[in-house]
């Protein structure tokens, strides 16, 4: 528990007293050592046969290059460093064009596509990205150049993550829609094959396309054939809409909910789009309930902490667990996302849940404080509560719907029984990616 210290900017608030929106006053930020969440480097690497080039200052380059180094993919990334002089001498655009050209000539292979990342300083200086892309496209007509953005100063408008998940499909052009082809867009990892979402698609004879399943560049380009594009991550919704509009396909957002009614509504919406009969899902729902009940017998009243990196709807998961008798005591989340309804419901159901900030500077010493034994869902929660008993997933871990609930319940049960090597697991950057560590 937090010591009863009166902070100028407290990092904790009782859920019952919290207002919608930002839960904490903004300020300086601390960065906890939990690295499982993917960044724009990991996401860009999902496109086969592509090369990433970053143009930015050394400080920004360092993080992205070592991301690639740790995932043993340095051969798929190059960089152009920007100096003070470059920012003021009118050569911002030409430096990028010349640098990219030099890199391409020296590469030992010919990439099909280049993801070119510019940074905050380029945007701030009014760098003309269109000119850069046009010149490079003219010079290297066999390569598709995609403008990508590493612009954290703009995160309050469009997050770099959401922008990346939109630009990821930039090379897809209209090739004629296949009515029996469906894509899932913007996810880092394949959706669980056992999920009702995937099963409905496959059982009804549709081809499922997903960037995580692409093995060749042609597989990736073929995603343009899908007549229905699905997104279920909040950061993927914008990209899904943009791509669908460009290709004339249908776009459908099916948020990864923990609410039975919403799961059923999502599936009904999908089946309507597909033109197929919606399964009744009673067995799946019952299996989810059984898995929750089984987990509850193991956890009993053990306090649970959920963080926002583990699932996209932490309040939604908390509501589900509270509804099944679990002792959800903490939620680590700074801003309310798409699970506002669950948040409101928890004000009645479990108003004493403590919401903790993930970045507030007064969380720095939280891990050293005395804690009761907590089972954590997510790496940040594991770190802050110094617990080796945790569910090691980010962004729902590829699980979805009732089957997703059952899977997460099983992981929760396992987490309560079997300790994990916390330090090693949370140090690994980009969960699921290869790592040299």
């Amino acid at each position: 528990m937090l010591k009863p210290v009166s902070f100028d900017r407290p990092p904790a608030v009782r859920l019952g007293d919290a207002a919608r929106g930002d839960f904490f006053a903004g300020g300086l930020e601390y960065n906890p050592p939990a690295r499982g969440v993917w960044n724009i480097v990991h996401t860009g690497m999902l496109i086969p046969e592509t090369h990433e080039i970053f143009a930015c200052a050394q400080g920004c380059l360092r993080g992205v290059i070592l991301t690639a180094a740790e995932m043993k993919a340095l051969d798929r990334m190059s960089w152009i460093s920007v100096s003070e002089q470059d920012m003021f001498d009118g050569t911002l655009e030409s430096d990028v064009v010349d640098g990219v050209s030099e890199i391409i000539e020296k590469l030992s292979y010919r990439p099909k596509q280049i993801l070119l990342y510019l940074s905050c300083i380029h945007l701030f200086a009014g760098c003309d990205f269109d000119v850069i892309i046009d010149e490079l496209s003219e010079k290297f007509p066999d390569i598709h150049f995609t403008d990508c953005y590493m612009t954290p100063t703009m995160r309050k408008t469009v997050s770099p993550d959401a922008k990346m998940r939109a630009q990821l499909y930039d090379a897809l052009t209209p090739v004629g829609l296949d009515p029996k082809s469906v894509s899932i867009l913007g996810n880092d990892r394949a959706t669980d094959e056992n999920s009702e979402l995937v099963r409905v698609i496959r059982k009804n004879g549709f081809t499922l396309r997903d960037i995580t399943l692409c093995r060749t560049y042609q597989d990736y380009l073929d995603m343009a054939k899908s007549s229905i594009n699905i997104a279920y991550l909040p950061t993927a919704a914008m990209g899904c809409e943009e791509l669908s509009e460009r290709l004339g396909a249908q776009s459908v957002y099916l948020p990864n909910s923990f609410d039975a009614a919403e799961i059923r509504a999502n599936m009904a919406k999908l089946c309507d789009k597909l033109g197929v009969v919606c399964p009744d899902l009673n067995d799946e729902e019952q299996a989810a309930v059984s898995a929750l009940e089984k987990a509850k017998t193991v956890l009993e009243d053990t306090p649970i902490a959920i963080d926002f990196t583990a699932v996209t709807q932490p309040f939604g998961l908390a509501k589900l667990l509270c509804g099944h008798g679990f002792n959800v005591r903490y939620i680590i989340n700074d801003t309310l996302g798409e699970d506002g309804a669950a948040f409101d419901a928890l004000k009645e159901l479990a108003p004493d849940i403590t919401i903790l900030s993930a970045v507030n500077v007064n969380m720095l010493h939280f891990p050293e404080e005395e804690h009761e034994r907590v089972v954590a869902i997510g790496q940040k929660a594991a770190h802050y509560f110094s617990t080796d008993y945790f569910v090691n997933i980010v962004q729902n871990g590829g699980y979805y719907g009732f089957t997703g609930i059952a899977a997460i319940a099983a992981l929760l049960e396992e987490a309560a029984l079997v300790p994990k090597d916390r330090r090693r697991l949370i140090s690994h950057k980009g969960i699921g990616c290869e790592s040299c560590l």
Partner: protein
Amino acid sequence: MKNVSKIIPCYAADTSGVCSALYEFGGMTVVHDASGCNSTYSTHDEPRWYDRRSMIYISAVTELDLVMGNDEKLIADIVSAAKDGQPEFIALCGSPMPMMTGFDYRAVAEDIQHRTGIPTFGIKTNGTRSYVDGASKALLALVKEFVHDMPKEDFDGIAINIIGATPLDFGLTGAVESMKKLYSRPKMKVISSIGMGGTLDEIRKAASANVNLVVSYCGLPAARYMEKEFGIPYICGVPLGDTIQAGALGSFMYETAHDGISRMMAAMCRGRSTDERAERLVIGEAVLAGSIAFEWSIMTRHAVDVICPPDIDAELSPDKKDMPLYAEEDIKAYIKDRGIKEVVADPLYKYIIPEGCRLIELPHFAFSGRCFAKDMKDPTCNDFLDDLVLAINKVK
């Protein structure tokens, strides 16, 4: 182009240098940046992050704050965090965006100090330079703030400050502890480590030393300042176990303490007198690379070149020939054109070592970060040199 790299990484940036240098002194270091600096630093440039807490934060600035010149928000945020954290000092540095807007570090630092009563200094970084630049400035600022003139130690021997050690160059290998042990013997004592392995209370007594041992280029500006202000001479070098180089460094350190004349290159000669062209090369931070080159030169009786991509100071280069080469192509061309046969460098240099040249791996945290951290060894221990010699002799 000088600023292009096809494959090898860049070195840690100036902001990381500041944070790393100030990590252990109970201060609060704030990087004026949106997001990336803190994540990059704490993931790739700071091996202490998981086990040892330090008040290193970012300002989380947004484009709107920058465009509108909303410095008041930053100041209020720092004042609030200082109230909660009660740091010994506050250091403020920044990334490229504040540079674009002409952010005034000195003025903001003065304002914060006025409001909090806590010593505050602005360190003008911009994320475009190497960690050496940032760490140098940070240690200089620390010394200017906390080291004041005082009587010399009443001690029949030499009293030493070790200056410039950070995990970026030494990893978590116990190097500072080893050096402290090495120099804690009759007629020698260590007053402080201005860098890792030290405390602010020790640093407050640093002016009582009579010689400064500069173990990385990061410590040189602070050493020069202390020479000018307190008359403490300095010597550069890292003692490499029981070697001729370490012995020479010890002797020169005595000489420096007694004659008061600083020595930049005493323990970093490269045997140029025997060969005009070297076939051996060390790539790395200037002082450590120079120390290794010196010992390698003695072992082989041949010249050894040094390339210092992070930065080089002319005075650190004994014959003014050490290269501050940075660009991948320049380093590659240097090795090829000069017919270099053996290179001691970080393992990630493997990508640009030409055929016929052998890479002897020496992980450098400021270059490859966590990738080879577990393979780093304390350069002041015999194991380090034994392994290096073993690697050097491997294929011969």
